[in-house]
């Protein structure tokens, strides 16, 4: 077992948890305001693609990260207009955003770089730097957790956000602009999710490939549900899911004496999803969503 549980496993857990923490914290702001965010996957991809292109062209990963986050904000704004202004079904619109980000980056990169949907390799010295095997983006992600906790529970903005998510009509009566707040929360979720995606393309690896988030946006969503929409549990859930992903690396090569695999990686991969279903069904404490989640707010109604 020593071959599986090593210091490398610890570092890869941190690595895999990083994009999840960004995305899940982003999702938290959106969903706490009452807007479902299935689009996390697409927002991450927007960040990953933009960051990779900008970093490759300017050789500046921090500018790349910034532009990636802005791309996430822009895409999230489109999503927000669709679901807040036009009251589109939030799941359907979010799903549309995800499909868009599967196609659009691939379309653009094959046009720009004449490749099948990936960007050019960024030079090693131009990706986000690491300190002792821990990427600067990971440090940022973990620093965001207490910050988000503070914002959510100790600031007027956080109070309003939670009020809007639980009871928009009451918040409106108390003078909070529900629509403005929701726009802000959704755009903020785009910024954070895109940072998580940017980490994938200019931190963990050094180029963008088509659909490179590989479902991490949905894992982040699962972590958010598992954590009952609370920042510190979000971090723990992301660490746990990062751990399950990290486990698949040593497990893939680890064989029993008989030559059979000890535990097929597929079962480890399934774990986060099975756990989410169990938690949603209420077997491990009730996971209660913000009350107005998914319901558009319309003053006249």
């Amino acid at each position: 077992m020593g071959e599986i549980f090593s210091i490398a496993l610890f570092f890869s857990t941190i690595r895999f948890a990083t994009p999840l923490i960004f995305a899940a914290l982003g999702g938290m702001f959106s969903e706490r305001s009452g807007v479902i965010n299935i689009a996390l996957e697409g927002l991450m991809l927007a960040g990953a693609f933009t960051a990779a292109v900008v970093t490759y062209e300017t050789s500046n990963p921090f500018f790349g990260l910034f532009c990636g986050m802005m791309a996430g904000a822009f895409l999230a704004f489109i999503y927000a207009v669709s679901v807040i202004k036009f009251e589109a079904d939030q799941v359907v619109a979010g799903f549309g955003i995800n499909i868009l980000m599967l196609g659009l980056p691939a379309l653009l990169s094959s046009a720009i770089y004449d490749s099948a949907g990936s960007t050019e390799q960024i030079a090693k010295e131009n990706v986000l730097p690491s300190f002792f095997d821990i990427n600067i983006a990971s440090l940022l992600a973990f620093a965001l957790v207490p910050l988000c906790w503070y914002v959510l529970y100790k600031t007027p903005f956080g109070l309003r956000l939670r009020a809007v998510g639980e009871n928009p009509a009451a918040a409106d009566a108390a003078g909070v602009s529900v629509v403005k707040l929701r726009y802000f929360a959704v755009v903020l979720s785009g910024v954070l999710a895109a940072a998580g995606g940017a980490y994938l393309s200019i931190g963990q690896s050094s180029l963008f490939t088509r659909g490179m988030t590989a479902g991490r946006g949905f894992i982040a969503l699962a972590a958010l549900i598992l954590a009952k929409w609370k920042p510190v549990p979000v971090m723990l859930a992301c660490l746990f899911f990062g751990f399950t992903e990290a486990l698949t690396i040593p497990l893939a090569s680890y064989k029993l004496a008989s030559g059979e695999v000890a535990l097929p990686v597929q079962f480890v991969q399934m774990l986060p999803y099975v756990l989410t279903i169990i938690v949603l069904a209420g077997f491990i404490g009730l996971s209660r969503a913000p009350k107005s989640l998914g319901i558009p707010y319309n003053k006249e109604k």
Partner: protein
Amino acid sequence: MKILREIFSPLIAVAAAFIVGGIIVLLIKDNPFQTYYELVGNSFGSLKDLGYTLFYMTPLIFTGLAVAVAFRCGLLNIGAEGQLYVAAFATAWVGIKFGGTVVNVFGKQEDWSWMSLPAFLLIPLCMLTAIAVGGFWGAIPGFLKAKFGSHEVINTIMLNFIAIALVSYFTQYYYKVPGDPLLQTAPIGEAAHIPRISQFIPGMPEFVPLSVAFLIAILMCVLVYIFLWKTKWGYELRAVGENPSAAEYGGISPKKQIIIAMTISGGLAGMVAIGEVLGSRYLYYHDFSGDVGFWGIAVALLGRNHPLGVFFAALFFAVLQRGGIFVDIETKYVSKDLVEVLQAIVILFVASLQRYSKK
């Protein structure tokens, strides 16, 4: 006038998609007219083209109907992808085990030839397996929603990932031909092959994988229409979709309808296996679906959750899918990813216009 209102938002959405898509094509310095010509101009020119277009259309009809039936009950089934994965694997499994071939299980040869069934039994058995297993996988989120109230969207997303991991596990460890670099099962027995359309139509090349599954898909459009609008069960299902509390007041159990709707939806998604496994590839191949389960959502949305609409929406997207290949080859910069971009814009516009077409 009603029909005009029904097709208003789909038409606007398609037009918007082509305009936005055209702008994107211009931005990457290519010719939108040539691109769109390649996209829609290669679908009906010859029997071969037509055959391929209808082949692409077949799974889109099944998944479109699957999503539409769930929609009519007020449910969003994002899980068609997972449902068709488990169904396709199970269908291939039955086709292998009862198809008279020697089966390799975990590196050991097992002779199952004594269990081999003739075609007239094996084909219906394989089809029933596709429907039953897809239906079972769809029933799980239905049951979870009815029993625990947990949201079907999250559960179907999770079940997609679980389905794909599970099926990949069984394929990799039990049903792969040893030494095969691809993640695919052994071939199904020949008795499980369903006839291809090329056998009936002279001039249709034999390699065109269009099979009788297409005719089954058309039949399902009719059956779903009859079920939803001409039977008591369909009425009850729709009543729950329109207004669950009113339906319950009227003596209809929403919980029961939710489970029924998700089971039917999963069964329809599972039928994708008929065309793909029994009619085209003759084995289960991992990643075979090309996201067709997710395309079903776009098909149902564009088709306004009506079987006739699903038919035309499936045809529309099939044309795009087929045309994407030509766009890839014939244009200088545009790749087939444009098709996904168009699909996404259609989805976003239909969803955003929903409010205006309801009134």
